[in-house]
């Protein structure tokens, strides 16, 4: 086991290097008020397990693995508060805003983010890790305990599903994006 001084300096390195990434991860999945708490909790766990945290490039997947569990716990608390908000709204008290609404402003982006959040939980997490956390298939495989091939397949299937869900609504939208060539078009 490393000395306490070594442990502290290692923790400081990890905090300095990864804190914003972990905070961003939490903000992508929880309301801002909970994201900060969740982020701090991730680093509390990291401090407790400081001797077990792998060196780069495996540090980030390891921290995301902790963050996934912490955010999941916080979400559970959020859902309970949402039920409370529902009760309060019946009494004329304004409910809290959904985490997605709090962080995603753009309408089209909001629709895409909502579609991502409607994927099955495991697919949702894999797509977010791939597209939002920008992790490789191998890194995602490490976090989720799947093979890289299975991750690739899940992403492919999820994207096919998103295309089916989003295509009709995009057809009705004004064309505010650059034109994209059709696959296999002439």
């Amino acid at each position, binding site marked *: 086991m490393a000395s306490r001084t070594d442990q502290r300096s290692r923790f400081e390195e990890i905090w300095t290097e990864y804190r914003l990434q972990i905070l961003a991860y939490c903000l992508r999945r929880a309301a801002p008020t909970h994201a900060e708490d969740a982020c701090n909790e991730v680093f509390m766990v990291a401090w407790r397990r400081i001797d077990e945290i792998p060196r780069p490039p495996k540090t980030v997947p390891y921290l995301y693995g902790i963050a996934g*569990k912490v955010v999941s716990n916080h979400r559970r*608390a959020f859902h309970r508060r949402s039920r409370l908000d529902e009760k309060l709204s019946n009494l004329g008290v304004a409910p809290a805003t959904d985490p997605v609404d709090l*962080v995603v402003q753009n309408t089209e982006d909001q629709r895409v983010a909502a579609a991502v959040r409607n994927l099955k939980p495991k697919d949702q997490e894999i797509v977010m890790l791939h597209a*939002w956390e920008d992790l490789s298939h191998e890194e995602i495989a490490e976090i989720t305990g799947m093979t890289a091939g299975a991750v690739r397949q899940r992403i492919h299937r999820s994207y096919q599903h998103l*295309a089916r869900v989003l*295509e009709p609504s995009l057809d009705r939208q004004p064309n505010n994006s650059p034109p994209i060539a059709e696959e296999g078009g002439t």
Partner: protein
Amino acid sequence: MTHEQIDRMVRRANPVRDPNSLGSVAVPVLTTPLERRMEMQIDHRPGTEVQANRNRWRGPLIGIAAAAAILVAGLVFVLTRDNTPVAEPAPNATRLTMSMEFQPIDPGAYFADTDLLESTSLRGTFVIESNGWLGTAAGAMKSLVDDGPYIALFIAEVDRVWSSACESGRTQQAAATTAEGLANQFVAAGFTNTGALTPVSAFGHEGYHLATEVRPSCISQDFTVWGGSNWDGRYYQTENQPLELWFLDVEGTPVLVEATWWPETPEEDVAELRTVLDTLVITP
């Protein structure tokens, strides 16, 4: 739409595209549970700093003296020992560790190291007979559905307890050094106690039993009630969550056993938790 087009759209919908835009925060000052406990024991009133400074050295000096005594005892043991082989206890139970937290564990025998220190032997050993259980540093839990009801068992040496834990004036105290004292701290912790504190004999030791529940008004905040040796605080998040607590005197060391489940947990799952409890043995 092609795979690449969908990928671009999903990436564009990222709520936090540039983490660097979130700004930086200074590294927190970190302490270990032992340091926090020592800090709690230091009297910060004016005029007591000198005594506090003396106290600061007491721990290391006692440690050095203890190490010297152990060294002498070890030498005596090596020079006088009988070399006849002695049978070791069968290593049939797996030690639960921090790295196993929330990781699936197979059916089998496990033990929770009550202070998470390999150098000490006090432990609670139990048997899991079905699939679906997850390990924790202090026991095991089973989530019946993702993010839903769970059943759980914890065995730990408590080192701090929050008094009136869900009130604004809550205070953190060092845990009592007797099972009865610890039990009384939990009685005052802020739960809704559904039964009286009762003397019992359980898991091989004498102690006290308390049936209690998480008070609904407590869950809107951080309802942390206790902390174990070398791990962080245990908090509760579910309204009316029942808890059965045992405070046992294990050869002078108070040990907490917590069995808990969500209110909506089906009877058969609570029965499964009780089956695991029936296998629990705490050994010094």
